[in-house]
């Protein structure tokens, strides 16, 4: 069954359809938040909030775009709201350009994360949506609200910038060939 079939079945009262959607996107949502929050507790909470928002707003869902971009759109806004809230609290560990903390990461990935952290926040977000969340350009445009040509040019710029940063530190990590 497609995502749209499942969400429509859920609207028809089939709770199992929502559970199926949840299982389908549990991993992607976790990965999305885990790479963007400093702790796994934060990631879990935000993923939970996202699915809760889907549950509560399901009646307003209209299959104009893919459910996937709809879901990531919610997740993206949940993330932005969380960052704003943390900023108001003065939580310095969570800044607008925060990505995951170093804990549990293999040493080979630290330099990748550091290179990502040095990118422009908007460019980095688009790059991560493409590389880690495997969204298409059009889906990224819907999620971020940017025109699709902007998405493409930003993505290219981010990749080139990342390439330059990674090329400057090959010995530090020993990962790249």
């Amino acid at each position, binding site marked *: 069954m497609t995502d749209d079939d499942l969400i429509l079945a859920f609207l028809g009262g089939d709770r199992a359809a929502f559970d199926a959607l949840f299982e389908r996107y549990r*991993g992607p949502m976790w990965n999305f938040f885990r790479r963007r929050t400093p702790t*796994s507790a934060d990631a*879990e909470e935000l993923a939970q909030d996202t699915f809760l928002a889907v549950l509560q707003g399901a009646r307003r869902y209209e299959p104009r775009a893919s459910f996937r971009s709809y879901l990531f759109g919610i997740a993206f806004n*949940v993330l932005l*709201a969380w960052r704003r809230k943390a900023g*108001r609290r003065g939580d310095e560990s969570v800044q607008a350009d925060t990505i995951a903390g170093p804990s549990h990461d293999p040493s080979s990935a630290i330099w990748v994360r550091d290179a990502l952290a040095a990118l422009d926040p908007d460019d980095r977000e688009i790059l991560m949506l493409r590389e880690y969340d495997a969204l298409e*350009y059009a889906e990224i445009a819907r999620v971020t609200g940017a025109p699709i040509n902007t998405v493409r*040019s930003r993505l290219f710029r981010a990749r080139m910038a990342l390439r330059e940063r*990674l090329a400057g530190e090959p010995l530090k990590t020993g990962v790249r060939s």
Partner: protein
Amino acid sequence: MTITHDVEREEVMAYLDGELEPARARDVRAHLDRCADCRALADRLRDVSLSLQEWTVDSPPPTLVAPSGAPAPRRRGAWWPAWLALPLAPRWIAVGLASAAVLALIVVVQSQLRGRPTAVAIGGRDDMTAALRTLGYASSAKQSSAAASASTPPSGASFARGASPSPSPNVQLNLEATTDLRSDRPADSVNVGAALQQPDAQMIVRTATISLSSDKFDDIRPGLERVVEAHHGSIAALTASGDPPNQRSITATLRVPSAELDAALAGVRALGRVLQESQSSEDVTDAHRDLAIRISNAKVEEQRLDQILKDRTGKLSDVLSVEQAQSRVRTEIEQMEAQELAMRNRAALSTITVDVSERYVADLADSGPTPVGVRLRNAFVDGARAAIDSAVGVTLAVLNAAPTLLLWTAVLFFPVRLTWRRLRRSTLP
């Protein structure tokens, strides 16, 4: 061999991401086969993607489970997506509520200050007027009666002159020939005290404008007459224009008692199809009260002048001065009373302006074709007029700009010529 780069670098990236149309993807593929630079770019992009995959994250924890519940019912009026509502900052809601509370507090404090009783010391006629205003002509009867002295009759207001504790003569303000503010009907005698005890008394001048369209135009005038007769009003003005088969119209001004304005309007509406309607009201309560106070003060002054004339002991010139002053005060009183009467009439009788146009249907039968000769002549005349207008317009534009152009030509001619000559000399070998 020279390679022509007919693909953009971003297109190489889009090709690798599978984001190109099939035809364009084939072009890029072909280009990559023959362009080493673009192949190198593609390799670098692949390297970046491979490098990024080095960063992996843990598996989702088992505690991440699907939330329970059913789809929430759609909120009425909530047309935006759910996720748009989530980032709303409660702080801004709090700021909005706090602003509204502060605004409400300011309004309440201002209204309280406006209604506060004030002790008044009166030194003259102007002070009396000010005192009446300060004591809240428009405020509560309780405040007004508190301000009045205990010896004041219920129907009048009195104010102690001077601030000294010694007994002072009281000035009785009897505002005869003003208006009964409790109703719209004219009154022969009313006093300020009664008015002060009527905090809700208001004089509202109401007007209404209504535009109608009617198929039965001949019935409009009798209909308007019926309306004003039924509601005890009158037609103040009526203008009819137009001649069949052309469209006809009637403009009428009706005066009806304010209490019957709504009923009269309903009657007018029934005469045709309403195209436009508007109503307005003007509160003249304060203006009327000020006028009443000025009248009362003038009458007090007139009485005092009468008393002076009765007890005259001075020189003849003094007596003449007093008589002149008395004449001036009497004129002022009459003028103000006329104004006051007009104001009462405006409040008592509302004005309805009615515009009725006949529903116009063009009748081709009555308008025969215009003869060709007439049309040619008219076209020629129009063309000649347009040509003349054009010539006149150009002439006017030239005449309009000429003085300014001449002035600046005269001012700038020699400096420009001098500069030009110097430049030319400097460029010559």
